[in-house]
């Protein structure tokens, strides 16, 4: 019984070095020596604690200045007043939050599906991409504020019109990133598929799509934020026309009534929504690529 590669009996130097990192998959590997590191020295804890400290200091400073200078609430409300307003006005603000989140998520979904479909179209042939790509750019560079009134007039349903506006804003990064990803296949691996007479479909499913995933998720991260911005812009435009019920509408109304604490509370909700979206995307990326892609393993 002689196998040509007798790795079990005589371990080659490369194998021996590999013994030290025997873990079959990095995702299943136990975190190295976690218990011995003090809590505050762990990067994971630091990533949460440090920004939190900065936030606390800034809020304390803000509260202190407002109290010390006796600034009136219709100019700058204190953080405490803002929080209080958030609770007392929750009936109005909570509903608006739901509307804005709904529009953002719907628009993000539409942009993702449309963007991916357009990318697949683009990579079918260089000619299609050359013909259509300038129009994708045109879509990107035209300010949505300028187009939104038209869309709101043309599309009867207010939710649908705002979703379209926000989706238009979020579309481009998904198209450009996914197209780039679908084209970024390692040339030798592409040759390998060609040598094995892989069909177009096999190459797409087994090679192009997995290769594109890191780029696609990068696009998602950018687009999630843009979808929120698009939703708020669309609500502003719709709000000036007297319709709408999202957070941007609340900000507009609060501005008319000089209800500055409520304006701040609505602003806070928008920011928190954006942060939540970003965190969700980061988590999704880690789940999808964590085990193999370098971008998700740099801090291990």
């Amino acid at each position, binding site marked *: 019984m002689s*196998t040509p590669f007798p790795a079990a009996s005589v371990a*080659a*130097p490369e194998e021996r070095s590999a013994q030290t990192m025997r873990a079959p998959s990095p995702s299943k590997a136990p975190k190295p020596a976690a218990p011995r590191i003090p809590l505050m020295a762990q990067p994971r804890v630091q990533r949460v604690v440090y920004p939190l400290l900065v936030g606390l200091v800034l809020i304390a400073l803000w509260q202190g200045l407002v109290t010390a200078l006796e600034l009136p609430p219709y100019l700058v409300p204190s953080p405490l007043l803002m929080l209080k307003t958030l609770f007392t006005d929750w009936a109005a603000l909570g509903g608006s939050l739901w509307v804005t989140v709904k529009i953002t998520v719907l628009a993000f979904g539409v942009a993702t599906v449309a963007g991916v479909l357009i990318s697949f179209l683009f990579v079918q042939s260089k000619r299609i991409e050359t013909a259509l790509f300038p129009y994708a750019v045109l879509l990107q560079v035209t300010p949505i504020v300028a187009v939104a009134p038209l869309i709101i007039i043309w599309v009867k349903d207010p939710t649908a019109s705002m979703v379209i506006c926000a989706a238009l804003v979020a579309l481009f990064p998904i198209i450009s990133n996914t197209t780039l990803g679908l084209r970024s296949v390692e040339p030798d691996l592409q040759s390998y598929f060609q040598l094995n007479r892989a069909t177009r479909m096999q190459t797409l499913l087994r090679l192009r799509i997995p290769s594109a995933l890191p780029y696609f998720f990068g696009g998602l991260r950018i687009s999630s934020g843009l979808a929120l911005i698009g939703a708020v812009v669309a609500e502003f435009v719709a709000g000036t026309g007297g319709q709408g019920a999202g957070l941007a509408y609340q900000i507009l109304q609060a501005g008319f009534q000089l209800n500055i604490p409520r304006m701040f509370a609505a602003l806070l909700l928008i920011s928190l929504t954006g942060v939540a979206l970003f965190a969700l995307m980061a988590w999704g990326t880690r789940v999808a690529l964590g085990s193999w892609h370098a971008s998700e393993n740099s801090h291990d």
Partner: protein
Amino acid sequence: MHSAEPTPSAPTTAHRPTPAVQVLSAEKTYPNGTQALLPVDLTIEEGEFVTLLGPSGCGKSTLLKMVAGLLEPTDGRLQLWHKPVAQLGESGKKMAFVFQSPTLMPWASVQTNVRLPLDLAGVPRQEADGRVAEALALVGLSKFASALPRALSGGMQMRVSIARGLVTQPDLLLMDEPFGALDEITRHKLDADLLDLWRKKKLTVIFVTHSIHEAVFLSSRVVMMAARPGRVVEQFTIDAPYPRTADFMVSPEFSRYAKQLQDSLLRASADTEETAA
């Protein structure tokens, strides 16, 4: 061009083994006029271990890729078992290609990577898994079937790549500087393992390298190539018996072959400088 083989396309006779690869005046000129390879005539018999040796730019990779069918010759023909390269399947023979880098799918486990050619060919999963296990055992990586490529060292990734080449049970193995990026100790080990495999599986191997020592150690025949323009200059039969061990590498015989190849390489580059001047 003085070839060691006077009649490269001589008809098969009873006492001669079957030619696996026939390169018939194949040449490659790129559209911008660069001559990557002057016409080459080369016959490789079944069971030979042939090394294409030369400096970078000599067209050795170009020649190998033409044999694989990845590049079309500008003029001339190539045949595998008397069939055009694209119709290799009709002869019932199989070819595998091992690239310079491991070219593994980083998102897929070692097992899935090795199974790829079988999946592409539509081999049923159960049969495929059995053959993958065999191929992994052959390269000594059975324990790492579920690992991702990035968890493996460079040498081990190359073994995975070789296992992926072997899993289809090829008759012809084409290797494009497969161990060029590895450290010398790992390379010697993989060279020795490859020789064992070649003998055990009765493969025909074409191996591209720029290392004289690797060429002498591995080959039954060395095809010496030169650059600007890329061409075949000379061929050498390495008559040392197999199995070859580390002792062979320090023998006077080995040094003599290495010297011969070295001299040939110098002559070829002197020719190039004359043409350039």
